[in-house]
């Protein structure tokens, strides 16, 4: 192994350069071998300190042993500071190692934090873990969310209105694959970017919400920033458009906007808002549910065009198959 470290001259780049996307790329500068002698170290000569020794997760893993080992419920309350980063991630790794992506039954581990969470709060959170944060959070909350549940609520008796206040930072739920999120407040930019499966409810977002999203469901009970749904190719979003200007803020390049009429959609939307109210006590959610008949028509359903076509084709094919099978049953009978 040691002999090979730094031997870029042994790399064969032909295959990659032949690919149509990489055509014409000149990798020679990238693959330059610096002309240095033994007086310069070009490989790892000392271990790096990643600062993991004192992290909050070590404490969480210890406190959640019964859940990790026997699936027994654990409920905790802890303070948190913005020095605590990627909280819940190492804990998730212990669950993933033992139970895989199936994780634990919902809410097996429930931890309530109070304070300001540092970056990547609940990143890659496993199924079976619910993190409640009373306070606010820095960027990358729920990055790569993997089945866990994250709830963020403002502290009690705040003087600001949460619907108009950023409670979670930028780029929340980046690349989330599964799980749930309920945020009583608004998010910074790029909320749910590259989300591929998480189901989340929030009271408002910054610019570029649902950018490059490929799956999952996002409900926004208020204003979004501009360029919503840019490059969104899958999943669906429901946005409460009370000022009638959402269309201007939405990037229509790949999506269509519809009213929420299908019974299935109405059920999904209502259930998610009810859950939001239940978890966060959002006054906004209560207002919407209290006058549901008036509010429902104000929701815009954002649907990627190609995704919709594929869903329709799949539905039609399914129906056809179903009819065919019924005919066969009749014929045999």
């Amino acid at each position: 192994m040691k002999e090979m470290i730094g031997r870029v001259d042994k790399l064969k780049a032909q295959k990659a350069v032949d690919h149509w996307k990489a055509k014409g790329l000149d990798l020679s500068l990238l693959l330059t071998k610096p002309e240095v002698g033994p007086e310069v170290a070009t490989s790892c000569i000392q271990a790096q300190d990643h600062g993991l020794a004192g992290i909050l997760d070590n404490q969480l893993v210890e406190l959640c042993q019964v859940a990790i080992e026997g699936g027994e419920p654990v409920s905790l309350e802890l303070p948190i500071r913005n020095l605590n980063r990627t909280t819940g991630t190492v804990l998730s790794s212990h669950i993933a190692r033992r139970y895989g992506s199936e994780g634990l039954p919902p809410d097996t581990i429930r931890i309530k934090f109070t304070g300001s969470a540092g970056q990547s709060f609940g990143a890659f959170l496993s199924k079976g873990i619910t993190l409640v944060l009373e306070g606010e959070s820095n960027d990358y909350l729920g990055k790569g969310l993997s089945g866990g549940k994250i709830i963020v609520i403002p502290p009690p008796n705040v003087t600001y209105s949460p619907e108009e206040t950023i409670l979670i930072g930028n780029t929340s739920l980046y690349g989330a694959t599964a799980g749930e999120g309920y945020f009583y407040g608004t998010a910074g930019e790029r909320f749910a970017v590259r989300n591929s499966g998480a189901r989340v409810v929030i009271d408002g977002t910054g610019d570029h919400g649902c950018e490059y999203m490929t799956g999952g469901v996002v409900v926004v009970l208020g204003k979004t920033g501009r360029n919503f749904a840019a490059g969104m190719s899958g999943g669906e979003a429901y946005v409460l458009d009370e000022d009638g200007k959402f269309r201007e803020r939405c990037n229509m390049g790949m999506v269509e906007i519809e009213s929420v009429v299908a019974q299935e959609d109405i059920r999904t939307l209502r259930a998610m808002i009810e859950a939001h109210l239940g978890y966060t006590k959002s006054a906004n959610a209560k207002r919407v549910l209290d006058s549901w008949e008036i509010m429902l028509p104000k929701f815009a359903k954002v649907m990627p065009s190609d995704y919709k076509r594929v869903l329709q084709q799949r539905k039609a094919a399914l129906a056809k198959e179903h009819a065919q099978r019924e005919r066969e049953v009749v014929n045999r009978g």
Partner: protein
Amino acid sequence: MADPRGFLKYPREGPKRRPIEVRVKDYKELYEPFEEDRLKRQGARCMDCGVPFCQSSSGCPVVNLIPEWNDLVHRGRWKDALKALHTTNNFPEFTGRLCPAPCESACVLGINRDPVSIRVIEWNIIDKGFEEGWVEPVLPVGSTGKCVAVVGSGPAGLAAAQQLVRAGHQVTVLEKADRIGGLLRYGIPDFKMEKWVLDRRLDQMQKEGVIFKTGVCVGVDTNLDALRRDFDAVLLAMGAEQPRELPVPGRDLKGVHLAMDYLTQQNKRIAGDTLQGEEISAKGKRVVVIGGGDTGSDCLGTAHRQGCVEAHQFELLPEPPLTRAGSTPWPFWPMKLRTSHAHEEGCDREWSISTTKFSGEDGRVTKLHASRVVFEDGKIVPVSGSEVEIDVDLVLLAMGFVGPVKNGFLDSLGVQYGTRGNVEVDEHFMTNVDGVFASGDTKRGASLIVWAIAEGRKAAQGVDWYLQTGKSIRTP
């Protein structure tokens, strides 16, 4: 990084030392000023590396925000650069002048070119800051009502004191000498750092509320029990002043002195003090400095300025290679031959040589007897038949330090020592004695100023933690 091609366009530059024949006539600092435009170009050489090794564990101990302020200087945003610099380093004017700059030997550009002139940039940022009046007292938001005694006023003690006073504690610095500053005051010669540089910083600290008490030798004039009456915590930052001795015949002859006695005297002389006791001077003398390190170099520089007629420096270890040795690859601190300003000023350097005896007439040293040595299985072995004699009038012993001075105060405290004889501390920099902390050379052995500042800051954090958790050593 304002100029991505800066390192390809500009060569490394720095201020020049004043001509030898001029500078040895005074004790003023060695360097000529460096023009602002040229300095900005030096800032442009920084590559703003993805992994800035200047800030790694091989680089800057206080983790200065080097790429940030390199860029800010290049853009001419001096005030922002100063702010960034002060967030990690209390005293950049000391390190800018005196640090051997491990950041530069770890600089990525140093792999195949000359590294960025980091130290000179740091130095200029802070000197400009003082010139422009940007260095003002930073007053604490409130007072905690807690009192801390800092024993020793070198860079570790001062850094800790400034951090603690800014956190709202009342801080008293106790210094056994007649002036504040420790080795910065009486160890570092003026030609490396003139003392007004220290005084202007002490002035800021005084305005921030630090109380300085000189002429107080803890263990003699006061002790821990007495300190308990007035203080909630004690920080030991008393250096590592125990010199390594040379126990050979003739050591007691007149004219054989410890480096620190010699250097301290000259600094007092420049400060205008009337000297007590025997004066040590190199004027008209043949001088041998024993020890090849920085202290030895400071002795040489001082001897040149006093007007010695001959200067020699003897080092026990063999001569290191001219360039970085393979055993200390980049980004490590390199083992290599270092030629200081004092060597430039004239010196005969001898390597692999061990002093065996001093002899003299009328109680004064006149001859140094030495022998060549080789290393065999980690042991120093004299080479038979290699004995040499040299005529000498003044011998200065600069062979390093073996740790903090223990007899008396430290022993009486009952603090635990590590295997190298330094005071041991836990992760909060607290010794085994509750509420008694240690930092700097007292804790790590004789080391760099930048390490003293780094440890002073960390120890201050430990003391703050102790006080904030409601603990105290105070007797009711």
